[in-house]
């Protein structure tokens, strides 16, 4: 069974088809990089996989279940364009909130563990609104990994990260892949993405123009997929 299966998915905004008959799959332990120009449908697809919106046609399955099933949501970690943490709460309060919402057995211990892993333990009681951009990004990463998700959905995960946050995220993603987790990420930063990716899917105007394994050739020349399968 695929960890993530997208079967004939269409998504419409009014009459405009943002996604057109998308077929994709990612097995457990795979890292699928979704690439494409702005407006190609990467974010729309990731949000549909995460269960934030329902497809107009087709279906999406996460380990055989639909994304909005409670058990499925327990297995998904999502990093979107926003950091999804509250400015008016402290770092610890934010992680405690999500640890409780995910029903983790020892919320405080788990929150403290992730503050330490992301290098935020010294500012755990500081309000997020006082954090630097890099610290906020690391807290967002801790929030997404807190419940040890089986599927990580990452929308432009390396955008606007400082060097330390990129290093933290790359380390965590490699560790997750080594433990058999599945990653689906959309990105414009091809070099960072293709270093991790086992598979690549190129979206062009809401359609899959290419889907296949990430070869050494692609990793060496990140523009190759665009040149060969894109619109130039």
């Amino acid at each position, binding site marked *: 069974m695929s960890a993530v299966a997208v079967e004939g998915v269409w998504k419409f905004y009014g009459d405009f088809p943002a996604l057109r008959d998308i077929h994709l799959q990612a097995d457990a332990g795979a890292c699928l990089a979704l690439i494409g120009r702005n407006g190609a449908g990467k974010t729309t697809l990731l949000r549909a996989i995460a269960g*934030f919106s329902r497809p107009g046609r087709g279906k999406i399955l996460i380990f055989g279940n639909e994304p*909005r099933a*409670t058990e499925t949501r327990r297995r998904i970690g*999502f990093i979107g364009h926003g950091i999804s943490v*509250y400015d008016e*709460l402290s770092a610890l309060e934010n992680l405690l909130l999500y640890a409780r*919402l*995910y*029903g983790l057995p020892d919320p405080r211990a788990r929150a403290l563990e992730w503050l330490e892993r992301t290098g935020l333990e010294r500012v755990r009681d500081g*309000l997020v609104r006082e954090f630097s951009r890099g610290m906020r990004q690391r807290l967002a990463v801790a929030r997404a990994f807190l419940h040890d998700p089986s599927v990580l959905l990452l929308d432009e995960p390396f955008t606007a990260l400082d060097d330390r946050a990129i290093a933290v995220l790359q380390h965590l993603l490699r560790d997750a892949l080594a433990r058999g987790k599945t990653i689906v990420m959309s990105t414009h930063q091809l070099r960072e993405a293709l270093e991790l990716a086992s598979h690549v899917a190129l979206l062009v105007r809401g359609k899959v123009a290419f889907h296949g394994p990430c070869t050494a050739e692609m990793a060496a020349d990140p523009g190759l997929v665009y040149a060969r399968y894109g619109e130039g």
Partner: protein
Amino acid sequence: MGFFRAALVVMMKDLRAEVRTKEAINASLGFAVVILVLFSFAFDPEADTTKAISGGLLWIVFAFAGALVLNRSFARELPNDCLDALVAAPISGAALFLGKALANYVLVLAVELVSLPVFGVFYNVRWTSRFGELMLVLALGTWGLTVIGTVFSALTVNIRLREVMLPMLTYPILTPALMAAMRLTMELIVGNAIGPETARWLRMLIGFDVVYTAVSLFLVETVLVG
């Protein structure tokens, strides 16, 4: 995680955030007190007609002041895309809604409880003469206001003119509850108990709360995800 526990976690999060920022409660309380004070200059506090309409005035103030709290309810989730993380969490949309509604209920009720003594002083009304019954009406009317306001706050969260849209959508639906609360409050403020005649309004208020709470809990998942 259990339904009520999840709702409690969401409620505590919203209350903690509001206590830190005080952005909704300050605006709402300020609005309520200013309107009550200003209107008190327009009417003669000794006149019986003033006392008769003051219950209605009180609920109009509560409804408008409440909208300032309710507008912030889901809008609070917009910075940093926090709503995504809440929707992604393995809790039901109904639990999320209930948590937010309870937090709003506490905040709106707090504004009302501070406004009542101001109302008593400026309108020369002995509002404590039927205190228990008045608190019951306040609790029921405020729950109706909160439930409708919270569900429309979720519906309008991504609309650019949500501050305008929320009252426009909320008040027409709230009309039966506001009518009932006004009629009951008018009687209680002049010292009359809830009798057989006014009990109909109380039943209507309870029915409104039950029906709209059930409908909101049922529909909120669709409102949040589509």
